[in-house]
């Protein structure tokens, strides 16, 4: 639920909805990529790879929106969206990562994001938006739901972190 789409034709509202959806994906893609880079730099390639994968999955989604909307080029991003939460519902908070994190943690993050995204679309679908928007929202909610399931499955396959996983016996180091 974001800024209410201004009273406009269904077509405009739809375009606005889709560009929001697209922005949401972009934010998520970027955040995952940033996490991947950070963990690469900190010698945690396993989780870095996982974030890269998550980023790629979101990219697919974004590409689909682009294709669907037949936007000639990337739409100019509107000034920062006033999401209900501080960022897009599918964007992981910047401080969710740790250099010693394990794949399970990454999936936990992804799960939360997908759940939030699902809820975001469900709310729109259940709300008073124009029909076309509601239909699209429903579709997307279903897709996010499938992601949720996928990740839940995935989580069963990776080990649960033992307590103390973030313990580093060595102190941080000094730089300039």
């Amino acid at each position, binding site marked *: 639920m974001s800024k209410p789409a201004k009273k406009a034709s269904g077509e405009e509202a739809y375009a606005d909805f889709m560009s929001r959806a697209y922005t949401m994906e972009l934010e998520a893609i970027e955040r995952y990529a940033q996490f991947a880079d950070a963990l690469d*730099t900190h*010698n*945690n390639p396993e989780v870095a790879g996982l974030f890269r994968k998550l980023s790629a999955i979101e990219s697919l989604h974004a590409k689909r929106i682009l294709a669907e909307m037949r936007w000639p080029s990337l739409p100019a991003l509107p000034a920062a969206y006033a999401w209900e939460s501080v960022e897009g519902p599918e964007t992981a908070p910047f401080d969710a990562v740790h250099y010693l994190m394990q794949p399970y943690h990454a999936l936990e993050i992804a799960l939360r994001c997908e759940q939030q995204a699902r809820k975001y679309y469900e709310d729109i679908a259940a709300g008073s938006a124009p029909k076309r928007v509601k239909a699209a929202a429903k579709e997307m909610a279903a897709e996010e739901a499938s992601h949720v399931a996928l990740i839940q499955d995935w989580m069963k396959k990776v080990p649960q972190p033992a307590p103390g996983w973030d313990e580093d016996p*060595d102190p*941080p*180091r000094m*730089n*300039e």
Partner: protein
Amino acid sequence: MKANHSSVSVALAGSGGAGVMTAGNMLLEAAAAAGYYGLMTRTSGPQIRGGEAAAMVRVSTFATDAQDDRFQVLAAIDWQNVNRFATELPLGPESILIGDQAHGEPPEVFTKTGARYFPVPLKQLAGQVQGGWPNMIALGVLAGLMGLPAQALEAAINKAMKKGVEAGIAAAKLGLAQAANLDGFKLKEIPAKSSRWLITGNEAAGYGALRGGVRFVAAYPITPATELLEWLSPALTKVGGTLVQAEDELASINMALGASYGGVPALTATSGPGLSLMIEALGLGVTAEVPVVVVDVMRTGPSTGIATKSEQADLNIALYGLHGDAPHIVIAPNSLSDCVAATEWAVGLAESLQVPAIVLSDQYFGQARAVVDVPAFEKKSFHRAKANSNGQPYKRYALTDSGVSPMAIPGTPGITYTADGLEHNERGTPSSQSGDHLAQMEKRARKISQLDPGDAWASIEGEGDVALLTFGSCTGPAREAFARARAEGFDARLVSLRMLAPAQPAKLKQALAGVKRVLVLEQNHSGQFLRYLRSEYELPGEVKSLRRPGPLPFRPEEIYREIVRP
């Protein structure tokens, strides 16, 4: 496995979280507990946390603060980016690599040295112990390869770990057992017992400062001087002094001057960039004759440079950085443990001569931790000459023969005065008269030039017509090179200067009498020490400069080769 090694160097590398530093420290403690000498240095990637790192531990039957030519063992918890440390971790065909197959093969840069690779399933072994860590397995392997006794290892783990001691010991023992299957580098007999410390150069300098009487410190954090301050802060509180964290280095040095003007011996510690900011106020210390000590823990320059690495390139600024003619003291410790005595001495000289003194330590000394013999301290102590009213008008800057004029300490009645950075007459009144300027310039120069440092000005070791001149942390590898040369019947003279300013030409002349070849060893690019020697001394015979900028330390072998070169 024959117990024929008098020194074994091992490195333990791995990513953040692997606990390589913790394990390295325990290895050092274990070596100490077993009665050996030891040294630990460290290196790490650019990340603040979670990056690659290596603990480098040398255990030996003799005291040394130098790194050896090569490492006998490089063990890695994982190999990620460990290749970046290749120049810091020289290996040879006699070396071995220890690693966990689960983390892949050792990087080529290590295997191509000819070092043999022995995989050890660190992770899997750690999994066998409830709460076990791979680093503890590696610790056990390394201890085993050197032949450290299990009790020593246990004692070290007991001392170091706050929790999980049992798991730690169990894991380390698994490692020890693994080592039994490997060709190791067993240490020779344990050296004779002596009183020892386990100490870093930064702690040593801090302790030296307190011994010298320092009771006020103001400072601003900077790598690699911060640990010196972090050691001093609680220590000062305990001995009735205090440390103020200043807003910047300009404030630090001026706070120290203010405290010292008040009669309390004062110090600040910093590194190159901070020293640059203190230059103006050091000049004030010279002119107003207010004692103060700056410990410069040198890092790789210029500018921000490489904050975590060592270099001896602040010699120029320490000697010549002040504007105007500003005679002052520059002292360099020439071993890690000498950081105590050198700093104590610098405080004493500053106090007794009422002048700023700079101590040139470096990142190598400052951040290395070593087992050292407790030094014998000189009984001689130095104090500030304090004035008391004798009914005469007080001349703060009286033109005495020694150049030192008794100083009135605030609170003393009848002899109040104003300390001044403006040129002044004997009373301290500002003067632009050439006569006053000359008289005060000569007074200030005199107190420094008349100083007789006795034997403390340098360490002079050995005989022969080849002399090696050096200072600071280059002395360690030089000493070892000399020991090797001597062991082969080739003696030479090692002159390691501790007093850099004022220069001691007469003493050096005597030290170099009869010398035909002079080697000048220093860790910087432009040859600052050589230039300094040339400007202050007549060097006899053929002079050769052995120099290289940081961060790589000199290794004994390369110095040895230069000494014995026909």
